[in-house]
């Protein structure tokens, strides 16, 4: 039976299987299970509630492969994707559900034991263990990438680009958790993590410079073919997206064939979870790039990828600076001054991008929040980028990557030196600005749009100067 651990009460109407299936004391779900559930909202002052749906895998012989994913829909919204790596594994999917009206809960798993095998006429996929009410929550935001694309096409009259990539850029200063966050996002069934690219800024600058150079002529290529800059840049972005898809696909194939070692790069060993397909015939469609230098090129990248989302990770400056100073060991110590200037410069660029693009395109994430509650942090990030939840992404945080271990004494020493800075040079106000923006929200600042455009001009003009 479905156990109700806390109020409010659930009532479930089963549609996909009969009560006879409960005879062994385990409530099994078939490969595709549709439940109708009502949460009794009496006494509750909320329209939406977050619940924890507990499900578990069965014995190994049920499944053709591990890991496999199960997709959980609330009404018709894909709300969460859970993954099972082993037999008899229990996981909790966190779902936002409406209160006081029936809703459908549909669970679709990749694999199941077909009925009639091993003397059991049931189709067995997952064990349904229970549900817990957690807390009142906000209604989920609409996730409508297709209408957004359609709007874009209609507004910009795009003829030449058939699809617009929707990449994710993790930006922020060095030593702020950009790598680990990138890998965590790249666990999602619809996103794959790229190695740090590092070349996109110059490439994008070249595209801008090319357009500007050609557009100077009175009767120029773009005018004659009626190609506005937006469309040209989006076409370049589309080409880069295809390149990333092909290069990643090749790498995955070579890795599958055992022809390259290590491959995917998270821990050095082969890791089947870093893959390019969420199912056998369902490729991941989006990529995430965590190159910190992209922070400086955000406006150029947004030109190439107008639907890109930027996750701006901000770490307390004292910790980030302490980590920069000691990253790579004593032989390669970065002077404190350099580290401070770098943190301030990069964080200022991130702040500028946030102000210029607004919260629709930029999400500020605090490193401390990610470390303290990765599950919640990842949930918020997936919500922001318009993807269903994927709690398994937090597995990345169970292992630290690319970490500069700091002993308490060293960290204390750096903190003390930074505390001693005169107030004008302290990085704390900048950090606090971002913290308050994250807390209180913000809106697009036209002056920031102008400033970020001026900054990108510098690179474009330099390219023009060198090439001509």
């Amino acid at each position, binding site marked *: 039976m479905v156990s109700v651990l806390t109020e409010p009460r659930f009532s479930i109407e089963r549609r996909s299987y009969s009560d006879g299936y409960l005879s062994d004391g385990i409530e099994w779900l078939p490969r595709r299970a549709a439940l109708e559930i009502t949460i009794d909202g009496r006494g509750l002052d909320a329209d939406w509630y977050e619940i924890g749906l507990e499900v578990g895998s069965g014995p190994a012989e049920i499944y053709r492969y591990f890991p496999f994913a199960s997709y959980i829909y609330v009404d018709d919204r894909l709300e969460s994707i859970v993954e099972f790596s082993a037999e008899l594994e229990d996981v909790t999917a966190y779902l936002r559900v409406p209160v006081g009206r029936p809703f459908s809960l549909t669970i679709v798993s990749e694999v199941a034991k077909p009925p009639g095998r091993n003397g059991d006429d049931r189709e067995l996929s997952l064990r349904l263990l229970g549900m817990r009410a957690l807390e009142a929550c906000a209604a989920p935001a609409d996730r409508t990438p297709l209408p957004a694309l359609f709007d874009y096409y209609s507004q910009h009259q795009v*003829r*030449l680009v058939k699809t617009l990539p929707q990449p994710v850029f993790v930006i922020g200063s*060095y030593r702020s958790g950009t790598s680990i966050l990138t890998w965590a996002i790249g666990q999602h069934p619809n996103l794959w993590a*790229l*190695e*740090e690219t*590092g*070349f*996109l*800024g*110059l*490439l*994008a*600058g*070249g*595209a801008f*410079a*090319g*357009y500007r*150079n*050609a557009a100077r*002529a009175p*009767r*120029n*290529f773009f005018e004659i*073919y009626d*190609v506005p800059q937006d469309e*040209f840049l989006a*076409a*370049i972005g*589309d*080409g*880069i997206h*295809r*390149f990333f898809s*092909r*290069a990643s696909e*090749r*790498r995955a*194939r*070579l890795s599958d064939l055992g*022809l*390259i070692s290590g491959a995917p790069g998270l821990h050095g060993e082969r890791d089947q979870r870093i893959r390019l397909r969420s199912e056998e015939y369902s490729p991941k469609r989006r990529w995430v790039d965590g190159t910190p*230098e992209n*922070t*400086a090129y955000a406006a150029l990248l947004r030109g190439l990828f107008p639907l890109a989302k930027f996750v701006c990770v901000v770490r307390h400056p004292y910790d980030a600076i302490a980590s920069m100073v000691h990253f*790579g060991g004593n032989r*390669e110590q*970065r002077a404190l001054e*350099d580290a401070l200037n*770098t943190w301030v*410069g*990069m964080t200022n660029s991130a702040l500028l991008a946030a102000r210029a693009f607004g919260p629709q395109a930029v999400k500020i994430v605090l490193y401390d929040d990610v470390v303290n509650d990765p599950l919640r942090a990842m949930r918020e990030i997936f919500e922001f980028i318009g993807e269903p939840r994927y709690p398994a992404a937090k597995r990345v945080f169970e292992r630290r990557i690319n970490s500069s271990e700091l002993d308490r004494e060293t960290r204390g020493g750096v903190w003390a030196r930074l505390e001693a800075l005169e107030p004008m040079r302290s990085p704390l106000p900048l950090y606090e600005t971002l913290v308050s923006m994250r807390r209180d929200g913000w809106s697009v600042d036209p002056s920031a749009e102008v400033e970020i455009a001026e*900054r990108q001009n510098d*690179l474009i003009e*330099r*390219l*023009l100067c*060198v*090439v001509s």
Partner: protein
Amino acid sequence: MHLSLMKDSETPRPVFVTGSYRSGTSILTWALGAHPHFHPLEETGWLAQYGTGALAGYDLVLDTPRNFFDVYGVSRSEFGAQVGAAIDAFMMRVSANGMPSTERRRWVDGTPENTKHVLLLRQLFPEAKFVFLVRNPKDTVASLVHFDRAGGAARSISAAARAWSSLTHRGLLAYRAFGPDVVKIVLYADLLDEPAATLKGIFEFLGDDSAPEAEAMMQQRINSSNVTSEEREAVHRRIDRSGWGKRLRRQYDEVLSVMAAPWSRDEEALLELESLQPLPTRVLASGQFAPLRWVLARIRERIK
């Protein structure tokens, strides 16, 4: 085992008509583009900037350990070809207004500035062919001096002579470095005097048959400066007085003698072309763009 990122059938095979301004690059571009297998393009004017940015990006990260291209096993030439393939797809869509043709699979770009970027363009389009048009320098200068009549900007004698000299030097370097399979030198005079035979030779070089549409297009005179013979003579006299006359003549003779001699690879020409190609360090060298300094500092640190 190496899996290619691109099928052979996808490899772009564009044609670049290069040479000085006012050397017939436009008319030849449209003549070649009249062929049913080719699309003529308006002068692009952006390939070098974009290609330079893209390859400078490659070079920038190349020295960092465990860089993107290392990890994905993407060589510089493969990356350049991928950038070129994306450009090719864009050109095909642009020239066909979003509906690429299955017949016209190659495009022709007659931007004279491309003459300076043959090395770069070959890095983007390894299968590209270059038709290097050379016109008598004095006539070219006369046409450039009166370019305002064809909608361009009129040049002074020295500016016009310098333009011819510089572009011709670059075009010849490309021929010396890459040879007649990649660069075909065509004299403007031959194109005018014997259009059918000259076009036939060009199409042979491009690996295709000639087409009557191309010859018909050559009969049209487009984009002409309409310089009279008296005006031309006057400019010639001014060229001689300016001191450019002998120099231009010597350079033109050099073109003729290179054309007449059998080709052998000229490594020095290749080195010179390489030295003229913008490098990321030159792109990034100066200026106030702070983020680039972080990039360079980080790379330096990693190299240590």
